């Protein structure tokens, strides 16, 4: 058996992992842009508290993040209950749950990166843009975002990579259901439990490494291109 002949369930895990990571980073990006901008530019009461809450998943064991998500969004959680009653929506132990778990765990990373990038943009340039007649929105998208682009891109890639590796929160909130929530790390974990699956385990590990490497290399390339432009 060659190292590159994947079984259907392995391919499923790869597809799922990339899917979760893409959804998670795409969903995080607009919120992270908005919150990153506010944290970088505005002073408001309770700012320190907001920052702490956003950064909490960074320091909390992911399993506890997953457990909290289960408490809140699970079928008996106070939001989950309402979602089920109102829309018949069940989140826990679904693909969506895996995405939500990834969003929460990777959000501090993307916010941090975007916030730092926006802090580096001279607010004087934003003032200049507004004096030239551009509203806040035009200023944000034509001045702030392009100038902070390297940080925004690397933040998104970081969130993507973190989602790819998400384990604790996913297994708690989304479970380990093959073909639905079993992402690469979960599949690796599952294989490790079975004797004689060393080859399969190693293969999946290598695939994880490869995906992460490609993502990082792409972001590095982009940032380099930005610098030379």
């Amino acid at each position, binding site marked *: 058996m060659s190292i590159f002949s994947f079984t259907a369930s392995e391919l499923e895990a790869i597809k799922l992992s990339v899917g979760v990571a893409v959804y998670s980073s795409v969903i995080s990006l607009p919120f992270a842009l908005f919150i990153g901008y506010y944290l970088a530019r505005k002073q408001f009461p309770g700012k320190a508290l907001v920052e702490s809450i956003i950064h909490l998943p960074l320091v909390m064991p992911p399993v506890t993040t997953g457990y909290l998500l289960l408490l809140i969004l699970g079928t008996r959680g106070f939001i989950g209950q309402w979602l089920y009653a109102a829309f018949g929506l069940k989140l826990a132990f679904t693909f969506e749950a895996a995405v939500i778990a990834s969003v929460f765990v990777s959000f501090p990373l993307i916010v941090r990166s975007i916030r730092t990038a926006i802090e580096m943009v*001279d607010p004087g340039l934003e003032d200049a843009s507004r*004096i*030239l007649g551009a*509203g806040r929105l035009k200023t944000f998208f034509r001045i702030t975002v392009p100038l902070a682009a390297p940080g925004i891109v690397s933040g998104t890639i970081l969130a993507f990579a973190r989602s790819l590796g998400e384990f604790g929160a996913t297994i708690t909130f989304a479970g380990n259901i093959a073909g639905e929530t079993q992402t690469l790390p979960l599949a690796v974990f599952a294989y490790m439990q079975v004797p004689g699956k060393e080859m399969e385990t190693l293969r999946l590990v290598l695939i994880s490494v490869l995906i992460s490497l490609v993502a990082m290399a792409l972001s590095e390339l982009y940032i380099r291109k930005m610098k030379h432009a």
Partner: protein
Amino acid sequence: MIQVDIQLKRDNFDVVVQETFGTGITGIFGPSGSGKTSLLNAICGLAKPERGSICISGKKVFSIEEKINIPVQQRRIGYVFQEGRLFPHLSVEKNLRYGMKAPDGNGMFNKVVELLKLGHILQSKPAKISGGERQRTAIGRALLSSPELLLLDEPFSALDVSLRQQILPFILKIQQTIRIPILVVSHDISDLLKLTNRLCLLKQGRVIGHDDYHVLLRRPELQTSFSSHSLINAVTMTVARVDEESGITTLSYGEKENWIKVVCEKSRLTYRKGDQIKIFISSDDIALSARRLPYVTIQNQLEGVIQDVIERGNIRICIVNVGFPLLVEITAESLKRMDIGIGYPVWCLFKSVAIDVAG
């Protein structure tokens, strides 16, 4: 026209200004930290005054009583910052077009590009152009947003002396082409005087004088404001004759020819008869004589009458009317030795190399 009547809180003092600024250039002069930039920020809406109102060409853009505070982007103000603040990720052309309201069929765009000589750098990024070009782009960008008021905050401070001289004629040309009020902030009076004689003096957030330079100079209480600066005579003259061989340009003022001569370098031979140019003579480059001196190399000898003498320590500043007022700085000792004073006829002598020209 712009009417300002505001009180603006600052850390150490309040900026309290009640002034009207008309079309043309007004120089806002004061030491660092006197509230000059705060005043500009309040006018354009970057800072919010505690009380008062601001009116730009008849339109109220700010009023505490009427609860009007038009946002920055709707005030139609051109603001040229000290450091230019060009958008680093956009080309010069995109910077210039950033504030343009609608495509104007390139009429205005081409005019500004030509006026500020930016044609050759349109596709360059701001990091790749020189300091003077950057400042000209910033000025052009402000102009193209079709402002009703132009604010220039220390437009020369980032430039070295030779670049300053290059920017001056552009600003003077703008004033002739577009009839809007222009406020220029500077802590360097000679820079301002090269642009305008109309000054507004700020000190600790208050306006302590707003008038023609020569009027302000005579007010004893304002002496300290000018004391550490060398005084400059700025006069607009007409080119009467250009002698290409000797490189000497003859200028005239008013009806009769005053025979003020300017020795030009080759580049300045682009002058044509009838051109209006602005010349600068430092007050300490001029000497006084009781008579015309026939056997001397000094070519410029203007006859006039001493109108006023301002005391400043052991320096005396004579305002001599030679057809236009000319400031002459001499020592108290010289004045005493020559036994002259107000009402005396004198000759003002200065070498043609002492004359500086904008451009």
